[in-house]
């Protein structure tokens, strides 16, 4: 995939000197939230949130709408002031400092390009406000237009650009100021799927080129996974888990995270624990074995996480595998994979993603009675939220 960029040059290396800083090697936090709370009326938008975002990393805030991710962004940008806690940018507290005095720039969800200015004047705006000398401004505008692959668009008006082009101009307008942190508020939300996928690649590439810290807000887990160095998963005003995409996906810290990244979750009760393997009696009927964290005892309520690509379907499960009977609801052939949605005995829907050409049974028929099977190493036991 990802064609369509054909012929477009992405010139990044020349834009900003790297100063020999190896990516991710520097662990110094450029943005820190320390026990930040924010209320709107009686509603708590953020509850005691602490985060450290490192120099030069692509950091995503991932969560459903209303989870507090945009509030977090607005707090860093200075559009909202916290009710409690501290926000530190480059080692200095910025609480009470207005947006126009913070070393932070934002790419807004609606782009917010100034309609009465040309593309070049839009990019110029931040430089003009900060009193950069005219000849340097002209040079930096040209560099930015080159960076976003729109070199001849300087004299156009935003209304003459497509959505994707406007999006790039918004990016250039923010990046031209060389901010310590770039905030992006679901910038790809308004684009169609194909363009969105292209822009993911391009955004990640630009970020690596300019080596500026990106804080990216999204509710799309795939988007966060493909672009980020690290992700903070948020829910109901709290940060649930922070980690690399792989960590989040393979070791979700809670049922919420597991479900949000698309894993199957089944409830059950611990029967026995042997070293790292736990036997769980599922509420749906059968007993299965899964990887068990320390400190669980028989009788504890737990959730079992099974990732879709670890599950497959079989007519008759062999002995020694984890299996649960169910009925096929939907089967979609996706080329490289076949996605099967199964309703298991307790009514839960499970998804199995089976590689094409593997030892699969072919595309099953809807309504067919089958078993969802998976290996015990592939599944993870989580303590249920709310229980000790």
């Amino acid at each position: 995939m990802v064609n369509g960029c054909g012929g477009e040059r992405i010139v990044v290396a020349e834009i900003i000197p790297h100063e020999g800083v190896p990516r991710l090697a520097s662990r110094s936090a450029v943005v820190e939230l320390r026990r930040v709370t924010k209320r709107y009326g009686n509603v708590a938008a953020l509850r005691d949130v602490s985060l450290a975002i490192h120099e030069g990393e692509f950091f995503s805030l991932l969560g459903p709408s209303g989870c507090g991710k945009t509030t977090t962004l607005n707090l860093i940008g200075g559009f909202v002031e916290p009710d409690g806690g501290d926000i530190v940018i480059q080692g200095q507290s910025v609480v009470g400092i207005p947006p126009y005095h913070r070393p932070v720039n934002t790419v807004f969800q609606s782009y917010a390009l100034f309609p009465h200015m040309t593309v070049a004047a839009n990019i110029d705006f931040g430089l003009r406000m900060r009193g950069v000398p005219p000849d340097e401004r002209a040079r930096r505008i040209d560099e930015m237009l080159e960076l976003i692959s729109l070199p001849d668009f300087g004299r156009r008006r935003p209304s003459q650009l497509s959505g994707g082009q406007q999006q790039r101009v918004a990016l250039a307008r923010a990046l031209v100021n060389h901010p310590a942190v770039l905030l992006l508020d679901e910038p790809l939300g308004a684009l169609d799927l194909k363009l969105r996928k292209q822009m993911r690649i391009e955004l990640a590439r630009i970020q690596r080129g300019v080596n500026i810290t990106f804080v990216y807000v999204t509710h799309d887990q795939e988007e966060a996974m493909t672009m980020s160095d690290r992700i903070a998963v948020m829910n109901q005003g709290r940060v649930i888990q922070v980690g690399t995409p792989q960590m989040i996906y393979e070791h979700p810290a809670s049922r919420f995270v597991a479900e949000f990244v698309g894993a199957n979750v089944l409830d059950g009760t611990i029967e026995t624990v042997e070293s790292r393997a736990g036997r769980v009696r599922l509420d749906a009927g059968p007993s299965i074995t899964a990887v068990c964290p320390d400190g669980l005892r028989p009788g504890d309520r737990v959730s079992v996480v099974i990732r879709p690509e670890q599950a497959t379907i079989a007519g008759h499960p062999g002995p020694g595998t984890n299996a649960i009977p169910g009925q096929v609801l939907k089967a979609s052939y996706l080329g490289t994979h076949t996605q099967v949605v199964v309703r298991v005995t307790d009514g839960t829907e499970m998804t199995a993603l089976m590689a094409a050409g593997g030892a699969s049974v072919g595309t099953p028929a809807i309504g067919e009675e089958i078993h969802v099977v998976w290996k015990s190493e592939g599944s993870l036991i989580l303590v249920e939220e709310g229980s000790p």
Partner: protein
Amino acid sequence: MSPERFPRRSPRWALRLPRLLLALYGLLGFVFLYLPIAVLIVFSFNSSAVITFPLQHFTLSWYRELREDFVLLGAVRNSIVVTVVTTVGATLVGTAAAFPLVRTGFRMKRMVNLFLLLPIVIPGILTGIALLILFVPVLNLTLSLNTVIAGQIVLAGPFVVLVVASRLYGFNQQLEAAAMDLGATPWRTFWHVTFPLILPGVLAGALITFTLTFDEFIVTFFTIGPESTLPMYIWSLVKFGVTPKLNALASIIVVLTLGTLLTANSLLRRRAR
């Protein structure tokens, strides 16, 4: 053969008739609107002192007479002063008032909104009397062009509020957030982003104020001192019977009004491009 599926084709003229009638109707409407003005202008060039057909000779003498009428020239000067000051004042006050009305929430906002716009619908004669009572017995002011200007701002301000507020309702406030994000202080944000974008509304408000004030009669009548504005002067002329001199004056006003409108229109168009 099966019977024909469609009814018989209508003749060409029958298809064209509705369009023709519509065009004629439109033409009649235009004649109704502009015939009086056309007649007015025609008679301003007619040599007879009596306004009646048939036309006599072509003359510019009525225009020449205007030029020598010092009372008239004074009235024109007064009108220009009143109109310009009122336009600036009402535009400033109205624009400033539109912001809190749109941007902030406060108790009884709807009520305030309603009362702010009430002067538009209150009969001018009531406003005039009310202002007169306020100015003279209550505030003990001497009636002059100043009191006229104050009255005119009361009349025109609501129109400016209305036009600017409608522009502000459609304003994407994220643009202001973006400007501040890019380092603009609130003051610079206003001048670089907010004001240029609401300018068409402000100009429209100013234009409405200008045209309203220039020929306003009723409220001026109640609030003016010994001076005279153009509408007052015309009224005093009519009292002694209409002469073609009046036609000449009216013709000039028509041409100036049209010119102003066309200029404003082309200016706005150039900005939009």
